[in-house]
């Protein structure tokens, strides 16, 4: 059973077609990369998957159940593009707040908070107000919050945007570890091609259309190019000819 299945999802706002017939799925223990430039509709798709927005047509299934369903959010960890944190609370208070949203007991909360803060190496800053955090620390805290309820599915919208290379690497190392050791399914959006290389499956999106999908190796072979950037350009060019009449 796929952990996440996106079937023929389209979204339009008035005359604007944001997404057209997007289709892909994510299996247990996979990192799926949603690749595309900014404005391609990635965040809209994420919001539809989270149940915060409704698709115009098509459906989303998480763990075999159709979205939106409140109890699915218990199994879905979410990290938004912007650091949605309570600035005037401490890191620990933020974590406790979100942990309470998942109705965790005091003991569970304590254990999970200890675990996720160690994971993102924020132990020493836990008592400080988020307003004093650096950009990287805020991203790490956001990731910790996304993991707080120990979800099976992690949805990360541009988790590494605007952070230094060192931290970026440590976040990706962590994602890889979550995948292999805890068999988590991770959906991550990015527009950085070398991050795409670290995903098991890629879904490339351009102007709301899924232009191609497959593992990085498959895609390189299929389009007969040495790197993913060229895959994107080549696939995008072909798809473009398909969907936009000139």
């Amino acid at each position, binding site marked *: 059973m796929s952990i996440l299945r996106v079937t023929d999802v389209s979204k339009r706002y008035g005359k604007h077609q944001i997404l057209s017939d997007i289709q892909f799925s994510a299996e247990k223990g996979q990192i799926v990369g949603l690749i595309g430039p900014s404005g391609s509709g990635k965040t809209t798709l994420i919001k539809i998957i989270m*149940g*915060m927005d409704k698709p115009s047509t098509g459906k989303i299934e998480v763990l075999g159940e159709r979205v939106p369903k*409140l109890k699915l959010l218990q199994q879905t960890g979410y990290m938004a593009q912007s650091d949605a944190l309570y600035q005037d609370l401490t890191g620990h208070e933020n974590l406790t707040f*979100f942990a309470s949203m998942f109705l965790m007991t005091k003991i569970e909360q304590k254990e999970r908070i200890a675990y996720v803060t160690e994971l993102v190496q924020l132990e020493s800053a836990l008592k400080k107000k988020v307003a004093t955090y650096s950009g990287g620390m805020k991203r790490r805290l956001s990731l910790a*919050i996304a993991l707080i309820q120990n979800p099976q599915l992690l949805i990360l919208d541009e988790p590494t945007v605007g952070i230094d290379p060192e931290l970026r690497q440590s976040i990706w190392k962590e994602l890889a570890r979550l995948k292999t050791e805890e068999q988590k399914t991770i959906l991550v959006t990015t527009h950085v091609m070398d991050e795409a290389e670290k995903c098991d499956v890629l879904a490339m999106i351009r102007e709301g259309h899924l232009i191609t999908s497959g593992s990085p190796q498959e895609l390189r072979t299929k389009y007969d190019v040495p790197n993913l950037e060229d895959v994107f350009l080549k696939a995008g060019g072909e798809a473009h000819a398909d969907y936009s009449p000139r």
Partner: protein
Amino acid sequence: MRITALVKRIVLQLVRDKRTLALLLVAPLLILTLMHFLFTSNDVPSTIGVVGASSEMIERLESQDFEVSIVEKMTSSEEVVVKEELDGLFYFDGDKIELTLENEDPSQSGMLQAKLRQVLSPAVNDSTIEVTYVYGSEDTTFFDVLSPVLVGFFVFFFVFLISGIGLLRERTTGTLERLLATPIKRWEIVFGYLIGYGLFAVIQTIVVVVYAVNVLDMILLGSIWHVLLINGLIALVALSLGILLSSFAASEFQMIQFIPLVIIPQVFFTGIIPIGRMPDWLQGLSKIMPISYGANALKNVMYKGQELVDVQFELMVLSGFALVFILLNILALKKHRNQ
């Protein structure tokens, strides 16, 4: 040039923000119009009861547009005034004349008294008129009547603003979206907000009321607990209205824009200007202003010393407003999530 570029940018931004533009241009007109109607409808109260008056006296009063009703005095003058809903009662007893004024609004009473003296002046010596008051005394100032209303208004205003901006910040910083990515239900968010800010509203109410009564020596004939209860209800209405309207604002700036539209018109209907003397359509408007009920209840308890049963209608209407706003809040969050 930098300056021209800056000016151009500001003009462009403002032109594109239709609502700010509308506020800038339409809201002042709206308020001016409202004030115009409010301050030009300043009739002197004119329902007078008389006991033992000569027919000549009655004629004289009626010729001055007073609505005269002849009452047989049975109980005390005060009771007659309240029961018959009179603005004043003349009791003629030979040479002695007693005038009992309702004095719900001291400034109106002053005008009424002056006009009555004028009517009677050739026939009756001023000094033989003995004036008593149903509410307050001759020392009662406009402020004494106004103060209960002000207490309610300030509670309303600040709770409205703070709760509104509170939820707004949650939306603009993205934390509301983050919150809605957890299994929390919409009504839980609304009630969380109501309770969270409600606590502060209660504290604020207590501080304001206690200060007003003990420090400012505000008239308090009724129970302070009743005053707190009424203010608590006013705060609940303000709270639910504040967070409701915040979902229609995209920034703190737009939230502030609701003040001249929502708050200031309500000021006019708090009883600062007597509602009973407004044109009918304005009186109708007062019925949709939550604060007019709160102000009325406060005035009745603080100034007139009434009990809760006497203001139960106002309390019920306030609760109704709160309930409707709360339900609308839960609906408004649908914009972000369906469940």
